[in-house]
């Protein structure tokens, strides 16, 4: 934003409200993979640093589907705090042309991500990554754990 004589000029026209939290929805089949554990360990250090600021500046939230007890237990073991979210079957927020391109499981992933306002879905199923374009049309970034740190 422009500064004049040390003061911010409050430009309100054509601007937007900034979301101050980055929400990552984990949809992992193999969270025990060493590289994945390492990524979340690195991420946790950044989260600890962000928690240090008072008043808070921004946050990173990790979301795990309630049914995925395995990933939740693994994250607990390495001390990564996560929020539980319910899987959503309501597909009304996804357009019909997009629905036709997504498998049953990917539809649930997309609907859940939309319902919890996730900025990105972290998945380790390689077959899903060609559908990143469809997710992008929904405003969701579909990526692997390896690329998560690049987003922060």
């Amino acid at each position: 934003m422009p500064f004049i004589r040390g003061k911010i000029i409050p430009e309100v026209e054509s601007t937007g409200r900034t979301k101050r939290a980055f929400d990552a929805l984990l949809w992992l089949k193999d969270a025990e993979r060493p590289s994945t554990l390492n990524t979340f360990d690195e991420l946790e250090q950044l989260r600890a640093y962000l928690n240090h600021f008072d008043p808070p500046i921004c946050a990173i939230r990790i979301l795990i589907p309630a049914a995925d007890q395995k990933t939740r237990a693994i994250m607990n073991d390495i001390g990564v705090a996560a929020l539980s979210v319910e899987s959503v079957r309501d597909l009304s927020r996804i357009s019909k042309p997009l629905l036709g391109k997504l498998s049953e499981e990917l539809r649930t992933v997309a609907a859940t991500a939309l319902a919890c306002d996730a900025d990105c879905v972290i998945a380790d199923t390689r077959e899903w990554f060609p559908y990143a374009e469809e997710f992008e049309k929904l405003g969701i970034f579909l990526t692997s754990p390896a690329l998560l740190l690049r987003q922060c």
Partner: protein
Amino acid sequence: MRGHDVPWSFSYKTWFQTWTGFYHFSEGQTLAPGTKLLNLCVTTKASSGTVEIARSLAYNRLESLCFTRDRLLFYEMQKAVAKRRRWKRQQFSSELSYFLNHYYLLLYGAFDHIAVLVNALFKLGLDEK
């Protein structure tokens, strides 16, 4: 969390980093050619003026480009949030145009910067202006 003014490098963790320091830690690969060129200028005993041009290119210009690129990416993320939430009139066009203009100015300046450096390195004798 680059868009929220919290520089954090996963490779070299330091609290309260400046942006210049941050990009040198986190974008080592991106900035390597610039640093290599600067080292080459020093080892081949180029004039102090030439070394200074290379230094400001490697240590100031490239970081500013990275910073502006990250701001643009940040607002792209914010646009995705507005899209998901179906917000109206939340296009971030003011912020995006501000940083995009800044990015182009920096990029064109980088070409000028390189031209001045080549002129000095090869002693072409061209007028800088």
